[in-house]
């Protein structure tokens, strides 16, 4: 490319040993063409691909350093790139972005599902539950009951009165079973009642739902110890729920003057709006139901409650209310004994 032919060589001496390089050029061009041909024919799988791979491996640290150094300037480069991008490229990128965003949401969903299923699996392993996994497919279809519908029914071995739990805690129990779906009565439903106990003090009572959606732990005597933050678990007395499954946390404890029992509000751990996969506990092992000692402890609790009630009856006129509460408590304790066979009628309304 001799554009400056009028320019004289800077030094004649310097050219003596160099020549024009014509021979070298021919050799280099021949080698270049040979390399080019081999490279195009064999692609990355050929020997040149291996050489290139080795070269790029060796030079990778330099590239990394360069990338780190030029990081602050890359935004500027992107601006130029964006300015020079044509409409087709932008549309293509937009479509790709949409696709990736959708894929990302899908993967996040899959990750959350995997986490939930892992939680259920952990729960199943921890409590050694004989259970069937199911999906919640819909919520309550009416405004007066708190239920959900799951996608498993009698064809999967489910029956009325089975306990249903999510990875975070008990949800409720089945109250109606079709061939391929079942209705689960939630613990928050007004008619739900589950034998429960305070984990720390082992004080036993009944966890009842209410129309307001509030869950209360009833039948806990005021001479027992219950504090805000205590964990409430299933007592296993009903024979439906395994002993020790988490139910919720005590959020308020009130002691009303003249009352034998605390008014305890419990925040359930499980919320069906957050749960999609659940476990239906199909049967219990002997170690999961309440022992005779537990039943005796519950009975003694009620007995002492009754005796206290009786002594108070003689002293005050408010005995009738306490007495009915006491008998109700004893009744539920008896009920738990009678429902160990997981019969449907008991499970539906009176709980365990």
């Amino acid at each position, binding site marked *: 490319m001799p554009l400056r032919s009028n320019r004289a*060589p*800077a030094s004649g001496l310097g050219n003596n040993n160099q020549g024009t390089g014509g021979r070298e050029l021919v050799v280099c*061009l021949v080698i270049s063409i040979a390399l080019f041909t081999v490279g195009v024919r064999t692609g990355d799988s050929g020997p040149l691909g291996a050489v290139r791979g080795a070269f790029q491996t060796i030079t990778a640290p330099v590239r990394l350093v360069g990338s780190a150094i030029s990081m602050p300037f890359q935004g500027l480069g992107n601006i130029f790139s964006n300015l020079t991008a044509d409409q087709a490229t932008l549309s293509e990128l937009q479509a790709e972005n949409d696709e990736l965003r959708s894929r990302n949401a899908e993967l996040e969903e899959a990750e959350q599902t995997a986490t939930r299923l892992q939680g259920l699996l952990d729960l199943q392993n921890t409590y050694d539950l004989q259970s069937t996994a199911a999906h919640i497919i819909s919520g309550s279809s009416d405004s007066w009951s708190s239920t959900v519908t799951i996608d498993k029914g009698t064809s999967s071995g489910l029956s009325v009165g089975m306990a249903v739990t999510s990875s975070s805690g008990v949800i409720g129990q089945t109250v109606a079973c079709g061939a391929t779906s079942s209705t689960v009565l939630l613990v928050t439903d007004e008619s739900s009642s589950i034998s429960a106990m305070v984990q720390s003090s082992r004080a036993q009572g009944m966890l009842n739902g209410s129309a307001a959606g509030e869950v209360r732990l009833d039948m806990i005597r005021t001479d027992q110890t219950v504090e805000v933050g205590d964990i409430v678990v299933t007592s296993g007395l009903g024979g439906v729920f395994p002993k020790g499954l988490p139910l919720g946390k005590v959020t308020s404890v009130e002691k009303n003057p003249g009352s034998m029992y605390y008014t305890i509000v419990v925040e359930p751990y499980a919320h069906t709006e957050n749960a999609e996969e659940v476990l239906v506990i199909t049967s219990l092992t002997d170690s999961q139901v309440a022992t005779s000692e537990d039943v005796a402890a519950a009975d003694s609790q009620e007995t002492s409650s009754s005796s206290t009630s009786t002594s108070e009856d003689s002293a005050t006129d408010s005995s009738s209310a306490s007495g009915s509460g006491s008998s109700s408590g004893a009744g539920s304790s008896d009920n738990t004994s009678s429902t160990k066979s997981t019969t449907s009628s008991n499970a539906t309304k009176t709980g365990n």
Partner: protein
Amino acid sequence: MRVADKNRDRRDTLILALVCMVCQLALAPNIGIGNGRANFALVFTACVAFNAGGRRGVLAGFFAGLVFDLSTTGPVGLMAGCCAATAYLMGQEGRNRMAGELAASMAEFSIAALIVSLIYHLAMLMVGQSSSLLDVILLRTLPTAFLTIIAFLPFAWYYSRSVGGGSGLSLGGRRRGGGSHLSTRGL
């Protein structure tokens, strides 16, 4: 008269090669306009060809192009051939041509960069690496040539300020008036 040291010339060429290679590997991939990237192999080729030329320029161009080919995803040998041919054409004239001739060096290099970039990208088009001629010219050739010219600017400026013996490739601070115009290579 300052006597050129052949070893020092080699060392200076080596330093220049190293600088250009680092720039090619670390800088060029991260600074781009459109799909264009600066070609420091061509910059190195031009520096050697302008200052030394001849056999040495051709070989330097060939190996610089080979490094470029290995560092990219294009076919090996293409830029090596381009750079060797460019070095041959640029090295036909005298030595130390960059000294005091910034504008002329830049003009000559700009034309060379444009032609090499066009040939390279047309070859890429022919081997199926690209699909559109317009894309090749507007989004690849022109930005690449522009960036390569920009990349050559500091080198041209540096060598335009240096004069003196040897091949003129010295990075050791020989400055205008600091030595003889006569190279003693070959003596």
